[in-house]
Every structure is written in C-alpha cells, then in structure tokens.
C-alpha cells in the first residue's frame, strides 16, 4: 500500500464525505423529530407486505421500526453506497480516463499497491459517513424520545460501514479491472439496487427465498441490527467479499494495458 496515494485519494474526497455525513446526521435528527407527531399515525396504516419489505419491514409505530424503515432501509445504504461507488470508480477508472493515472504509474509504484491504497481511502470515506450516521442516530433517537440502545445504534453503523466497504470494493474491482468509470459506477449501482429488490421480494416467494443470500442487503440489515445488534456472520461475509473484490481489482489492473 502506498501511503501518499491513500492520503491524497482520501483528501480529494473528504469534502464530499463530510458533507454526506453531515447531511445524514441532519436527516436522522429530522426523522427523529418527526416520530413523536407522525409515528403512531403511520404505524396504524396497513401496507402490503411487499411494500413493507421494501421499507425494511419495520413497524412504524415503534421508534426502532421507524428508524429501521426510514434510515436503515433507504437513506443509510443509499448515501453510503452512492459515495463508496462513485468514489471508488472515480479514484480508479476515473483517474485513468482523465489520464492522471498514466503519469502516476510512470513513477516507481506498483499498480496493485496503488489499488490497495485507493481501497484504504474509500474505506476511510465509508467510515466517515458511518460515523456521521452513528452520531445522527444518537441525536435522532434522542430527539424522538429514546428507545434504542447505544449498542444497537452502533450495530447499525457498523453494518452500514461494512455494506459501504462491499459496494465500494465492487466498484473498485470493476474500475481497476476495466478502467471504465461508467461501467464501474453503473454495474455496482445495479448490483446494489438488484440486491435491495431481491432482499425485499425473494422472501415473499418460498421457492425464491434462498436468493436473499445473494444480496448484500441481507448481510447488512437482514437481521435488523437496531433490534438484534451486530450480525457477526453478515459482517464477516461483507468483510470477506470486500477483501476478495479488492484483490480482484489489484490483480485485474496488473494484467491489462492502461487505457489512457
């Protein structure tokens, strides 16, 4: 791993990461503030099971279900996934397409070490956003009247971070392996959306229930961290997938020509 490369990649994306973290924090505070006035009303609504699953399957009438549906199912993974994917594809394929990588790799640095450094930087970005989410949860739950333990809020932030690692690593593998930014961004985003849909709908059809295991969303929130705490298996699977995808990117960039 090259420390200068990691530091610069992190620094260039720090403003976006801090903005996203502050934005998430503000959204969570607002979501918490809304709960006392609308939570019980929405909680009495009868929604189809499929729609409920898309929104995390939580009970809106409780603060845990409220945050599970509003934050854990949508905002959290959307923001952290988008930032990880766009950051990873930009710092690999984006820099290659912008012709910066050609100059950097004319210096004495091995390609796989460069990709490893970029992976560390993206992990740093993800951690910043996860930290913002964690603080936002604490603030939001407090504003909403409390009811979720600190350990369970920490668990969601941890699961969110590992979800970010995995989606970022997928974009990194595609970006480093192909040198094509739009492909890396588009394919990683498609996998994320498909994973969300599979995790939401597959359990509704008995024969397709097994498909949920293919979705990163299952390992991220399938065991409801706000209720049950950290899902160790999920963390391990997402962690291993992240490492494997990073390795794919490191090997992929070594085996091909730079495109620009």
């Amino acid at each position, binding site marked *: 791993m090259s420390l200068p490369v990691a530091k610069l990649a992190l620094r260039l994306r720090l403003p976006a990461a801090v903005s996203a973290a502050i934005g998430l924090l503000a959204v969570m505070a607002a979501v918490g503030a809304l709960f006392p006035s609308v939570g019980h009303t929405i909680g009495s609504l009868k929604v189809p099971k499929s729609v409920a699953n898309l929104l995390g399957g939580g009970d809106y009438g409780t603060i845990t279900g409220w945050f599970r549906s509003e934050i854990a199912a949508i905002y959290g993974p959307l923001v952290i996934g988008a930032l990880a994917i766009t950051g990873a594809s930009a710092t690999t394929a984006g820099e290659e397409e912008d*012709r910066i990588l050609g*100059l950097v790799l004319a210096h004495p640095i*091995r390609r796989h070490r460069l990709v490893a450094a970029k992976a560390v930087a993206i992990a740093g970005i993800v951690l910043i956003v996860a930290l913002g989410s964690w603080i936002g949860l604490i603030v939001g739950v407090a504003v909403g009247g409390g009811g979720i333990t600190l350990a369970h809020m920490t668990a969601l932030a941890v699961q969110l971070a590992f979800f970010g690692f995995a989606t970022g690593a997928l974009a990194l593998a595609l970006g480093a392996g192909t040198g094509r930014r739009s492909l890396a961004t588009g394919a990683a985003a498609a996998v994320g959306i498909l994973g969300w849909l599979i995790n939401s709908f597959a359990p509704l059809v008995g024969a397709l229930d097994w498909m949920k295991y293919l979705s990163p969303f299952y390992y991220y929130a399938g065991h409801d961290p706000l209720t049950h705490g950290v899902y160790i298996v999920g963390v391990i699977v997402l962690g291993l997938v992240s490492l494997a995808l990073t390795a794919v990117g490191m090997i992929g960039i070594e085996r091909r020509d*730079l495109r620009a």
Partner: protein
Amino acid sequence: MSTPPVIVTSGLTKNYGSGRGLFGMDLEVREGEVFGFLGPNGAGKSTTMRLLLDLIRPTSGSARVLGHDTVRGSLDIRRRVGFLPGDLALYPKLTGRKMLDYLAQLRGGVDPRTRDALVERFGADIDRPIRELSTGNRQKLGLVQAFMHEPELLILDEPIAGLDPLVQQSFHALLGEVSAQGRTVFLSSHTLSEVERVTHRLAILRQGQLVVVDSLENLRKVAVQRVEIEFAEPVDADEFRALRGVTEVHADGRTVTVGFEGSADAVVKAAATHEVLALRPREEDLEDIFLRYYRSESAA
C-alpha cells in the same frame, strides 16, 4: 569499452488492430544522446513511450531500458526515468506545489533545491490550483516533475506543447546541459524545428513503422541537393530538366533553382553555358527530409 544502449527495442510490436499500433520496431538509443522521435499524429510515438514505461504491454517483441526488461523490470526503470506524457493531466484541485510534493513522495522524495531551481528556471506558478493554470503553465509543471529527480533517462512526449518561445529556449538549454552530463533524452515531436535544434539523432516513424534512424547530418548527406543559380539573362528551365540526376527545377525570372541527386557536374556545366552571376547552394531542411520519407513510404 562502449556503454550499452539506454533503450533497446527488438521487434517491438503493439497491434491495436485495423493497422493501428507499432510494428516490429528495432531501435537503439545511446547514453548521453538527445534522440528525436518524429512522425505524424497516430504514427506510434506515444505508444512506444508507453511501452517503454510498461503502461501498456507489447503484443510481441521486447524492449530494454537502462538494462532492464520493460515488463519484468519496470519498477527499476521507472525509478530512473522522468516522463512527460503528451496529454499531461494533473489533479485540478491541487496547487502546483502540492502536485509536485505528491509526485516527489511517490519517488521517495527529491532534493527540494533541484525542484525549486527548475520552478524558477521555467517560471512555473506553483501556488495556484492547477485548474486555474493555462496549458503552458501546466506544461511547465510537467517539465519540472519530469526533471526534478535528476533521472538518467528522460522520456518526453511533445515537451514544448503550449510553451512560449522563451520557455522553449530555456528548455532546450536544459536539454543541452542534461546531455552534457551524460544523461539521455528520448523526445517525440511533430515540431520539426525543435527536433532539428536539439537532437543528435532522430527516427522517423510512420504508421507504426520506423522509416529511418540516423543523425541529421547523415540524413542531409543523402538528401537531395539544391542549388540556386542567378543568371545575367533569363534561361530556359527545360535545359536543366533534361539533365541526368535532376529531380526538380523552379524558374523565377533570372533565377533557377535545381534539385539533383549525386554529382553536380552536369548542372554546373549546363549553367556555365550562360553568364552566371551567383551560385547559392541551399541546404535541405528537416521538413524536406521528413516529407520526402513520408511521401516515399506513401508511394511504396
């Protein structure tokens, strides 16, 4: 004992398909020389440089730089080479200073005095964000980063692009100093006057193939000679067209310019049948040489 060549390529090929790429290039660049690499756009100049730095890999053939194979020993090569890409791109948000610091860190540090001397020499603006710099000012940063670690070999792709004449002059002086120190420069250009001014030897590349490699002096020796003859009275230009070895004749009033290959005897004797006021040999410039090779290959 002579020192081994700094760059050796053997049947170096990069085939992009549809006739594009580089094909079977055999080339040697010697230590301490400024070697010009000349050719039209798409001839394969940048492809060659990218192969030498292992940014792309050969389809077949091989190359050695500073004694190392370009694929297996690329890290050792890149430690000792300074590179200026033809389409230089830098991080737009960084200042020139931060960009140079970053690239210096990738090399494990450079002597700041060398860097500062280059910055001063080229008048590079290193305190503004790169996105605010003109093309020429970015190119100055590119030159500073290529030279700042005092590499043994400089690979420079279109180095004077965007530079004003004063900076070009300063750059050419630096090339002379670098060469005098025994360091080697491999530069590409389509600016013929630049190659003519600074290179010891040159290669002309066309459609991915080397057309010729020689010194400018030798290229001129085998070039078509021209002589401008000023007569006391206008003469019939056809008298010269019929002569053996004559390739071209231009008449303008009392002046006739004759281009010929081989001996000047027939031309001089034909001219001597008239009153000759002046006889002025005209040296073929690089553009003529380049275009002649280009045309002859096109015709082949």
